[in-house]
């Protein structure tokens, strides 16, 4: 026996099927499904074994050839019953199929009605002749096989489970290879063992699908395979051309010379290819891993944005907008816990259609408690299988069915569920893959950090506001003014600024400036500040310095540095006769001009030891009278509108 590709291929296939058959036969549990597949493997073992005997010309030659054909029928039969069992079909004609299969095998082996003759010619070429029955058996047999394949494809389309889809994909791929390879037998290529090799490949694919429950996403496998095959082919061709050229150029015919030239060319080309490869990589990424590439870009975008975004509403809107686009999801909802011991409410949602989803999740909702405890993504399937979800109420189940939620993605900070995402089905109706889940988990972790930052910032902001408010109250208490003077200036001042169409930052500055405009009075002795009589010049000089003191006090605080000028210039007059610097007009910051008007108004309507309180009408009249001299006329005009709008004037 001479070893060649023609003899080695069936031998390898025989070994492969033999090993697979034994593996499956000894593995448990021994279910009917596995049983039928074992029969298939056994049939294929016999088929490839017989093929080996045929190619080596073993006697009785005709018997081995007939055995090949009989084993083909047996494999078709096994596959038919395998698919029937897989999809719980109880076909009325399954008995006839069995009878047909048994008859076909029997006729193949015991009569010459199917195979008339088969032998190797003197040149070793295979010669075979079928008899009249071959058509009657081969056509229904092939139809049976195609029918099984169609059933698998239908099952694949029906299935929503990723693992099963993968498994079926392998089966479909394997059987398609078999059908394709078998068709070569009717061409000139039939003399090569293409079918045997293809059967071997199919065996590996199919057995892998059967034995492994958790399969990799075949798309990725194929893409990787495709990529590596292509790359290898391109590089191989490139090297072949370059080396061939080099050899022909230098006319190297000895083996030593060829090796030296090959190594030299390899070095040169690898240096040349390296920079080219770097440029090629993003292109390959885009072409072969579009989803992954998009997902990577999304994470990149979000990682830069979310860290600087401190508003949870904006953050949640941004995240669900990105995630629905990247994963092509029908919709997404971002739920967040608003307060301690509170329910989870939808904060942002995308692509829900016209209807806004408002259902809240109670903190004792099984999905919430499970996500809090486990911190892992829950799928729609989990709700039907994980025992804890038996505790779902009917109304909760109906709610979940209404929104067609596919995934629940927890966002936890230090084991506490602070928010979660609900992902709707993908527009492609494909299930979420492991990669998608990984992406969502990464995004959830990233979002958790952003939420934590936002919460910390929020906490800081609250502390800041509390501190400033306390400080302002303290100043008010020291002065003889009525309490709440500073808050009034802050409120009316910021409202006037809003009416003047100032920017949000400017409005905020006026608010804080108003609240702290008198902070410099902290350094003025009580004897002056609370003096019931008129102040003398030196005392006035001290009083006039409070704006500068206030600005000096505030300016080192980074968060308040912006408002220092507002405090410093809050007693300047529009005509330049104010203090401390006597600047005028628009040299005085707008915020300071606003505070000046509001402060004067507030002082007028307050009662002082040395004067009666003005009515608001009198105070407004006084403001208008001094408009253009003491006060900016535009500010006065808008301030009056503000107090009218806020019903400050009764």
């Amino acid at each position, binding site marked *: 026996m001479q070893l060649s590709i023609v003899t080695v291929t069936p031998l390898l296939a025989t070994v492969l099927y033999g090993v697979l058959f034994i593996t499956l036969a000894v593995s*448990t*549990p021994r*279910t*009917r499904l596995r049983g039928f597949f074992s029969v298939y493997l056994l049939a294929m073992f016999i088929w490839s074994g017989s093929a080996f005997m045929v190619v080596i010309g073993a006697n009785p030659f005709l018997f081995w050839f007939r055995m090949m054909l009989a084993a083909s029928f047996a494999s078709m039969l096994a596959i038919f019953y395998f698919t029937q069992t897989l999809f*719980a079909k109880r076909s009325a004609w399954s008995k006839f199929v069995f009878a047909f299969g048994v008859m076909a095998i029997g006729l193949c082996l015991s009569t010459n009605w199917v195979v008339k003759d088969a032998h190797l010619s003197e040149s070793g070429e295979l010669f075979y002749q079928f008899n009249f029955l071959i058509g009657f058996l081969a056509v229904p047999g092939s139809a049976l096989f195609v029918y099984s394949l169609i059933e698998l494809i239908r099952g694949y389309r029906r299935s929503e*489970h990723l693992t099963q889809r993968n498994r079926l994909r392998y089966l479909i791929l394997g059987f398609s290879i078999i059908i394709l390879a078998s068709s070569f037998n009717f061409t000139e290529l039939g003399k090569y063992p293409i079918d045997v090799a293809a059967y071997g490949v199919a065996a590996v694919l199919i057995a892998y699908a059967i034995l492994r429950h958790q399969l990799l996403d075949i798309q990725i496998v194929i893409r990787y395979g495709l990529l590596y095959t292509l790359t290898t082919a391109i590089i191989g061709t490139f090297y072949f051309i370059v080396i061939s050229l080099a050899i022909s150029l230098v006319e190297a015919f000895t083996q030593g010379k060829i090796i030296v030239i090959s190594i030299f060319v390899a070095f040169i080309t690898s240096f040349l290819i390296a920079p080219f490869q770097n440029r090629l990589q993003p292109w390959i990424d885009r072409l072969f891993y579009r989803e992954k590439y998009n997902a990577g870009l999304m994470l990149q975008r979000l990682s830069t944005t979310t860290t600087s975004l401190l508003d949870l509403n904006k953050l949640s809107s941004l995240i669900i907008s990105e995630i629905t686009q990247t994963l092509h999801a029908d919709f997404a909802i971002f739920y967040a816990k608003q307060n301690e011991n509170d329910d989870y409410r939808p904060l942002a949602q995308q692509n829900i259609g016209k209807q806004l989803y408002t259902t809240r999740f109670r903190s*004792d909702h099984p999905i919430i408690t499970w996500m809090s405890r486990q911190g892992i993504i829950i799928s729609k*399937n989990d709700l039907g*299988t994980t*025992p804890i979800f038996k505790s779902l109420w009917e109304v909760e189940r109906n709610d979940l069915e209404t929104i067609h939620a596919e995934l629940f993605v927890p966002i936890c900070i230090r084991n506490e569920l602070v928010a979660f995402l609900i992902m709707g089905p993908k527009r492609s109706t494909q299930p979420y893959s492991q990669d998608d889940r990984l992406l969502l988990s990464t995004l959830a972790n990233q979002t958790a950090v952003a939420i934590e930052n936002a919460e910390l910032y929020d906490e800081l902001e609250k502390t800041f506001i509390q501190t400033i408010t306390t400080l302002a109250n303290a100043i008010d208490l020291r002065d003889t003014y009525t309490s709440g003077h500073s808050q009034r200036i802050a409120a009316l001042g910021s409202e006037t600024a809003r009416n003047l169409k100032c920017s949000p930052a400017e409005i905020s500055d006026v608010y804080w400036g108003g609240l702290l405009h008198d902070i410099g009075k902290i350094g003025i002795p009580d004897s002056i500040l609370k003096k019931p009589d008129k102040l003398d010049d030196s005392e006035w000089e001290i009083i006039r310095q409070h704006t500068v003191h206030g600005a000096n006090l505030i300016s080192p605080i980074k968060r308040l540095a912006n408002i220092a000028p507002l405090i410093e210039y809050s007693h300047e007059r529009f005509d330049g006769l104010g203090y401390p610097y006597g600047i005028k007009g628009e040299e005085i910051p707008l915020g300071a001009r606003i505070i000046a008007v509001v402060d004067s108004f507030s002082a007028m309507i307050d009662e002082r030891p040395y004067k009666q309180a003005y009515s608001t009408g009198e105070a407004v009249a006084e403001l208008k009278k001094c408009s253009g001299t003491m006060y900016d006329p535009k500010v006065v005009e808008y301030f009056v509108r503000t107090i009218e709008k806020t019903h400050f004037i009764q």
Partner: protein
Amino acid sequence: MASYKFFEEGRREDLWDKHCGYLELSIRDFMKIQERLMLEQLELLSFSKIGQELMGVSPTTIEEFRQRIPFTRYSDYEEFLTDKNEDILPVKPYTWARTSGRTSDKGPKWVPYPKAMYDRLGDAVIGAMIMSSCPRPGVVMLEQNDKLLLATAPRPYVSGYISHSVRDQLKVVFLPSIESGEKMSYGDRVALGFKLAMREGLDYFMGLASVLARMGEQFEQQSNTSKPSKDMLHPVILLRLIRAMIKAKVNNRSLLPKDIWNLKGVMTGGTDTEIYRDKIEYYWGKKPLEGYASTEGGNMAMQAWNAKGMVFFPDAGFLEFIPLDEHKKNLDDPDYQPKTVLYNELELGIYELVFSNFYGGVLVRYRIGDLFEVISIGDQELNSTLPQLQFYSRINDIIDLGNIARITERDVWKSIEATGVAYQDWIIRKEFKNDKSILHVYVELKPNSKVEETEFLDLLDQQLLKLVPDFQDYIEILGRNPLQVTFLKEGAFTAYMQAQVKAGADLAHIKPPHMQPSDAVMKRLISNRTG
């Protein structure tokens, strides 16, 4: 999602989780399910007339529910349910199931089954099928188109709905088909089931343990004497028989059912499971798994794959248990409201079961009259921390011997079995003869049993003392042995049952009760007394 979809999608692990995952629930999660579903139930009841009638203002917490709502029995519901008035119910029922009415004076008990409760019937049985056939935890041997012989009562008995619920969720082949089986008598249906199984094969059996045991016995006895029939000529049957005979020959014994069928699992209910467990395993090659079900509560508990204690399903109903001492106090003083413990508070001992329906059922704090024994808290083999229980007895079936010893149906049955004497059936009564109490066992022996009454009495006494050691204390205090045996005439039980069938008796009344049958029943059995 229906369970058959899991098969189509190859999600066998998920199928295990769905139906058997509850075994690995922590007791905290188990109680969480109980509490949440009970709160939902209280909400549902609060809007229904029956709920308002039974509970007044609906409790809002479990604590309030347990403190304020009294225990109920079926008589509390009769006025609402007998007419099947659906307007007063919390949820429109999907169907109504009935009991035999054995403990009710006004005919059968009718219990409404909302859809979710009906679905649970099948859910639990699929779980039982999976566990009864798994070689190790997590491995699902159940397959689509498996053949199932259901030797249970048809609709409107709950067992009939069980088969329908199973069929809704799983593509199994019933032998015979449900539709044709429902039109047959019980005996004909089981006979046809086994006949069809000869051709189609048999994967699961569900029904009474005694039926399987009897079948096994008959097989063994008749295997050498049975004559060939034309049915045997069918190639599949012939092949099956040849294979079975080879197996029996290799093992050098008579032909047994396990040689003919390679059963995946056996599921049984009732007291006799434990009695016949070993016999069934010997004849059928599979240990039966015992379950606990009732018309009022549906499937409530099931043995796990290791066939030890039963574990209650967390969604079977809200479970409360009256400890035995509390139960006794209540027996002595019917006005006394016994305290209950929850599933997480169970300790080793005997308890009376109290349950409330979930999913819009109507029974609230219902005392069904069954006692359970907690045999362990958790089971390492199952990786479960949940209490494991076994059915102890029906309350009415306990014979109390002067507060010293308790004799249950299982005790007597096991003792009779242990004598090794072939018997047809038996009953036991506590009787008074000459002002003296006696424990009277009436037995019908099999025709081939050659044993005298006194001999049998000795054997039975020995076995009963072994099984119930307290019985010895009772004898000593009494100063005499109260046990007596009387053999009934051959065919006594058959004659009784035939007469009952002829009289149109309800299914559960066809056989006389084993424990404390009434004088009327006794009279008819004794009339067939031997000698």
